[in-house]
């Protein structure tokens, strides 16, 4: 199996308007999109059992290639399973924990944002999401995709840059 021609994004939002919007934003940027209206539908799409995260249909690392999802973008505030709950479930799954998850929210609550980022969210977008936000996504996808290929020992067409992990992380500079 070769590399997918298009990156496939799974978008999760209970608002029909916002689903339509995110779908258009992503398609404009040439992503393939699957949009669902809940966290449980997202898990269902991925083939994850809703009750127990690791009871995967296919527990091997090929699962993400089978479903072919390169990124998950989810609303935070949803009835039932929140975007945060979905993030946790994805990160607890052996098959899907390496898929980047981006959280969207209409509310700018720093503690919420920090908690999501600390628990593995790749990024956090304030709604309404803009094309400039979506344009930020591509570096995440290329890096992740080449990491998955490296794990399998495949040749990379994309020469990936040095991963961020080896660079020192700088804290926010304080004004003296």
């Amino acid at each position, binding site marked *: 199996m070769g590399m997918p021609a298009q990156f496939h994004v799974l978008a999760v939002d209970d608002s029909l*308007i*916002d689903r339509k*919007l995110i779908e258009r*934003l992503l398609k404009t940027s040439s992503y393939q999109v699957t949009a669902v209206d809940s966290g449980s539908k997202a898990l269902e799409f991925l083939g994850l059992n809703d009750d127990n995260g690791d009871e995967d249909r296919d527990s091997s690392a090929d699962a993400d290639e089978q479903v072919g999802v390169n990124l998950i973008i989810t609303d935070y505030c949803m009835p039932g399973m929140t975007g945060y709950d979905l993030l946790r479930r994805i990160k607890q799954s052996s098959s899907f924990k390496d898929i980047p998850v981006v959280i969207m929210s*209409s509310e700018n609550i720093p503690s919420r944002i920090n908690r999501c980022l600390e628990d593995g969210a790749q990024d956090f977008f304030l*709604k*309404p999401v*803009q*094309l400039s936000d979506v344009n930020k996504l591509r570096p995440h996808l290329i890096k992740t995709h080449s990491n998955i290929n490296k794990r399998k020992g495949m040749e990379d067409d994309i020469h990936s840059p040095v991963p961020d992990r080896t660079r020192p992380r700088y804290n926010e500079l304080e004004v003296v």
Partner: protein
Amino acid sequence: MDLVQLQRQLVEYRTSLYHEGFLDEQFTQLQELQDENNPDFVVEVVSLFFEDSERLLNELTKALEQQSIDFKRVDAHVHQLKGSSSSIGAQRVQKVCIAFRNYCEEQNVEGCLKCLQQVRHEYSLVKTKLESMFQLEQQILSAGGSIPM
């Protein structure tokens, strides 16, 4: 009215909607997402907004008529309305929703009822204006012209 006049009228009308705060730059973002492959995108999203808002306004009316008001429920509906109005750039509707949510938090019935009235009013205004704008656009297209940006 000839094509050039129609186009001028549309531009003036649209500009006034921004100046008067009915629309904000999010609406411009929607227009920029429309292209030859998705020529009805804006109308489709706005239609969804109309349907959704009418549903939410009805729910809000019912919720605020209850003997014992469930403010969490009221707030949930307002949160949705705030979100969708923000997504299409209906700024005045969004602003009332912000005040509305504060009254919900305070469990202030008077405040909530006042906001419900205000949000109905603002919604009705923006609906009328957007419909007029779409009508103008249709006239231009029917006359064989293109919609000025």
